[in-house]
Structures are given as C-alpha cells and as structure tokens.
C-alpha cells in the first residue's frame, strides 16, 4: 500500500541553525501539506502546496519557513533559523484531490525536531 515517508525520523539542531525536513508524498498525489504538533498540544496546519506554489499558509508559517518540491518526488520544509519554540513533531501529508469526497489526507510518520 502506498504511503507517505519522512526523513529523518528525529533531528536535533542548535538554535539558529537551518534544518530541512524531507517528505516523499504518495506518487500520484497532487496536494501536499505540512502540519506540526508541539508536545502536548494539538496538530496545527502550517502550509498547503499545489502546482508548485503555496495555496494556503497559517500564521505560524512566517518568513523563517519555506517549502519546495525540488523534483518529482520530494517535498521539503525548510526552517531558516530555528528557535526553541520550533521544537515539535512535523507531519507531512498528501492528497489526491480536494473538496468534498476526495480530500482524504495521508500522513507520514513525522519528524521529531528538537532545537537546543
């Protein structure tokens, strides 16, 4: 069964460093998403991406964040200068379509980012 994969599973970095979180969405999906879950809090939407551009982003997704689909398979989230409060589990998701009836999003296992 096709699945979303994410690497690395755990990333430890120093405050101020850049990190890139990688995701491989399901191959025939067209819509890609990043969410995060700070420990003990709910899952929060960061950004959605379609047709090589951001379609929606949340208030959390400020200038420190960027997303890219560098090739036909990978989808990355970059944090330019990490802060302590960026420590969280980051989930990538993908969906084949949007709108009623088809917007089931499939989630990867997550990358746990720890900023020291």
């Amino acid at each position, binding site marked *: 069964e096709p699945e979303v994969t994410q690497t690395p599973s755990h990333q430890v970095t120093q405050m101020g460093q850049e990190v890139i979180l990688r995701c491989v969405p399901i191959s025939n999906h067209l819509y890609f998403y990043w969410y995060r879950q700070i420990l003990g809090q709910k*899952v929060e939407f960061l950004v959605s991406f379609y047709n090589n551009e951001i*379609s929606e982003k949340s208030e959390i997704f400020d200038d420190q964040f960027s997303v890219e689909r560098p090739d036909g398979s990978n989808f990355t989230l970059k944090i330019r200068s990490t802060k302590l409060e960026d420590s969280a589990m980051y989930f990538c998701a993908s969906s084949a379509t949007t709108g009623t009836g088809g*917007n089931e999003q499939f989630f990867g296992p997550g990358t746990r980012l720890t900023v020291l």
Partner: protein
Amino acid sequence: AQSVTQLDSHVSVSEGTPVLLRCNYSSSYSPSLFWYVQHPNKGLQLLLKYTSAATLVKGINGFEAEFKKSETSFHLTKPSAHMSDAAEYFCVVSGGVLTGGGNKLTFGTGTQLKVEL
C-alpha cells in the same frame, strides 16, 4: 472559519465495553469530517470520514461515527473496546469547499483513550 471541540481529553473504558468519543464541529460550509488515530510514536491514521453522503459512517477496526447536523456533532463509537484501541483520537474538520488548491485540516485537541482489562 471552522473548528472542532473534543469534549473529553481522556476516556477510560474496560475491554469489551462500548467506546464513545465526543466531537462537536463548527463550519461555515458543509464540512468534511474525519477521525484520525495516533498510536504512541506513530503517525496519524485515518479511521473514517464523512463527506456529505451517508450520515452513519463506518471505518476501520469496528469504529463508526454519525454526522448529526442538527446537533453539529460527529461522535465516534465502537461497540466493544479492545486493548489495541488505546491511542489518541483526533476529530478533524475540513472546509469541504472546492478551493482548487487544497483544504487544510483543523484538528481537535485530541482524546486519549485508555482501555483497561
């Protein structure tokens, strides 16, 4: 704007007894609603979804949920709990409107289900 409220942060049941996890939603549009489950140190797995077809939705592992528009509820139930059901459960709403660019999911705060012998 859309939101979900999960009324219980923790639910504890005995194995073999029914499970009820409560969720109320708010949405300006005809919503799509989902329940996702997260086992410890695992990703999010879709249990079931409601997308304006049948109001009683059946999912995996014996779970089902009923969409009640008049009560703005989408409670998750299972007739008989199993030890393997112990996990965190998230009620999730999506806008349900074709945007052409993807629909963000809005998660509830989660309900931790504990199943005791």
